[in-house]
C-alpha cells in the first residue's frame, strides 16, 4: 500500500470514503421521492459557485456549497409554487448555473475553462488540506441528517400527504433534504466531479434495491457499495492514472449490472414464495379493485 505514503492520496482516500457514505445516503431519499436527477441539477448550479470562488479568491468548496444550497432551495420552491412551468424554470437554473460557472472562471485572473475540468470530473491530486476540513464538516452534517431524521424523511418520501397529517413539518423537511443534497454535491465534487456526482447518489441505490427488502437494508447496502466503489475507484485511478470520477462511476454501474444479474433468480424465487403465501390476492398489488361495483350503483 505505497499509495498511503503520499499525503495527497491519504486526503483523496478520506474524501472518497466520505463521498461513498454521503452520496448514497442522500440519494436513497431522492430516489424514494423520484427526484433522482436532483443531484445532477445541483451539480450544474454548483459550477457557478466554483467559478465565483476563483473570481473572488474564496474557497471554491465553500463557495460551491453556498451557491448549490441556494440553488437547491430555489428548486424546492419551484417544486412548490411553479407547478405549471416547473421544468422550464429548472432547466434555466441548471444551464444558467453551468454558464455562470464557465463565465466566472474565465473572468477570474489566470482562470480558464480548463481550470474547471478537475471540478467537473474529479481529481486526486487537487484535494487540499483545507478541502479535507470542509469535506469532513459537510459530510458530518449529511450523516447527521440522513441517519438522525431517517424516520421523518422516510415518511415524507413515502407519502407526503400522510406525513402532513401526522403533523410533521413536511416543507421544512423537504427543504432540508434539498439542502443536504446540495451539501453532498460539494462533498463529492473534488473526488467524483460535479457532472458525475449524481451517479454516485443514484446508481448505488438502484443496485441496492436489487437486494434490499427493507428501506433500512437498501440504505445500508447502498452506503456499503458507495464506499467500496469510491475507494476502489480512487485506488484504481492512482495506479492506472485515469480520472477518479469516471473510474468510480463506471465501477458503480458495473456493480449495478452484476447485482441485477445476480438478483434476478432471487427475485423470481421470492415472487414464487409471495404468490404461494397469498393465493387469493393480486400479486402486483395494483390490480383493479375487486370489491368495487359500477360507479352508479349504491353509494352512487
Amino acid at each position, binding site marked *: 500500500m505505497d499509495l498511503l505514503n503520499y499525503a495527497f492520496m491519504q486526503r483523496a482516500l478520506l474524501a472518497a470514503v466520505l463521498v461513498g457514505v454521503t452520496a448514497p445516503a442522500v440519494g436513497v431519499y431522492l430516489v*424514494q421521492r423520484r427526484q433522482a436527477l436532483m443531484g445532477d441539477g445541483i451539480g450544474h448550479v454548483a459550477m457557478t459557485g466554483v467559478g465565483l470562488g476563483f473570481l473572488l479568491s474564496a474557497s471554491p468548496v465553500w463557495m460551491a456549497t453556498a451557491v448549490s444550497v441556494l440553488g437547491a432551495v430555489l428548486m424546492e420552491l419551484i417544486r412548490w409554487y411553479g407547478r405549471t412551468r416547473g421544468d422550464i424554470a429548472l432547466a434555466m437554473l441548471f444551464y444558467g448555473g453551468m454558464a455562470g460557472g464557465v463565465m466566472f472562471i474565465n473572468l477570474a485572473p489566470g482562470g480558464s475553462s480548463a481550470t474547471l475540468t478537475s471540478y467537473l470530473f474529479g481529481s486526486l491530486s487537487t484535494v487540499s488540506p483545507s478541502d479535507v476540513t470542509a469535506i469532513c464538516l459537510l459530510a458530518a452534517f449529511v450523516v447527521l441528517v440522513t441517519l438522525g431524521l431517517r424516520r*421523518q424523511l422516510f415518511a415524507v418520501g413515502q407519502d407526503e400527504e400522510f406525513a402532513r397529517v*401526522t403533523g*410533521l413539518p413536511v416543507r421544512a423537511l423537504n427543504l432540508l433534504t434539498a439542502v443536504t443534497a446540495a451539501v453532498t454535491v460539494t462533498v463529492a465534487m473534488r473526488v467524483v466531479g460535479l457532472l458525475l456526482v449524481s451517479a454516485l447518489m443514484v446508481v448505488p441505490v438502484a443496485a441496492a434495491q436489487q437486494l434490499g427488502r*427493507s428501506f*433500512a437494508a437498501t440504505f445500508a447496502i447502498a452506503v456499503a457499495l458507495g464506499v467500496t466503489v469510491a475507494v476502489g475507484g480512487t485506488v484504481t485511478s492512482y495506479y492506472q492514472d485515469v480520472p477518479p470520477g469516471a473510474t468510480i462511476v463506471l465501477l458503480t454501474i458495473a456493480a449495478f449490472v452484476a447485482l441485477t444479474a445476480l438478483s434476478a433468480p432471487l427475485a423470481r424465487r421470492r415472487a414464487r414464495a409471495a404468490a404461494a403465501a397469498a393465493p387469493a*390476492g393480486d400479486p402486483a398489488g395494483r390490480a383493479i379493485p*375487486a*370489491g368495487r361495483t359500477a360507479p352508479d350503483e349504491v353509494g352512487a
Partner: protein
Amino acid sequence: MSEPVVALRGVSAELGARPVLRGIDLTVCRGQVVALLGANGSGKSTAVRSAIGQVPVSAGAVELFGVPVRRFRDWRRVGYVPQRTTAATGVPATVTEIVASGRLSRTGFRRFCRADHAAVRRALELVGLADRAGDPVGALSGGQHQRVLIARALAAEPELLIMDEPMAGVDLAHQEVLAETLRDQVASGTTVLLVLHELGPLEPLIDRAVVLRDGRVVHDGPPPTAAGRPALPGHDPAHPSPAGALGAGASHHCLDPQAGTEPLRTGLPS
C-alpha cells in the same frame, strides 16, 4: 352537548377551476361512525381531505375537535387512511417501516421508545398482518396493502379515523377482517369518518350516512339498508331530498357521550 369531532360548515372547495364542494355541512360526533357516500366525482374524497386540511377551502369553516383545522396541531388524535394510490415508491420498504411512520404523529422528532415499537406491532396484529411485518410492501396484494395503510393510521392510537375508500380492492373475506378490526376500534370509542363506495360488511357499524352529489349533501341520516338500495334517499334524481329535511339539522348537534352508555350506536341521536 359535546364538541363535534369533525365539523364542516358551509364548506366549498375547488380543484383547479372546477367547484368540487358547494357548501356542504358535515358533523361527526364523538363515537359515531359516519359513511360518506356518493358517485365518483361527487366530492367525497375532497370532503374528507378538506376535513384534515389537505384541500384549500374557498368558503366555510372546518374544525377538528373544535379547533379550526389550520390551527389544529394535535395530529396524534387523527388517523388518516388515504385512497390507495401510492402503491410503491422507488425504494423498497417493509410493512413495519410503513406502519411505523404512522407513529410519528406521537413521536415527532424524538426517538422511538419501547411503547412506540409495541404500538406498531399491535397495529399490525389488529389488521392481521403480524406475520408479514418484515415483508416488502411490494410483495403484498392490493387488499394486504390496504390493511398496511389502515395499520399505519392505527399505529398512533387515534381517537378519530378518517378513511378514504378503505375497502377498495379488498376481497370480501378481507373486508370482513377489516370490518372486525373497525368494530373493535369503534367499541373502544374511536370516531370514524369513512368514504365508501358501498356499505358492504361495514353496514352494521354505520350510524349515519351522508350522501353527496355534485358537491352537495343530498342525504344525511340513517344508512340505506342493503335491501333498500334503490330507495336510497336522494338517489332518485326526480325526488331530491335536500339536506336538513332528513334530520341533517339534528345531526349537527352532538350529545355528550357521558350522557348514556351507548348514546350514539343507534344512528341519529334523538
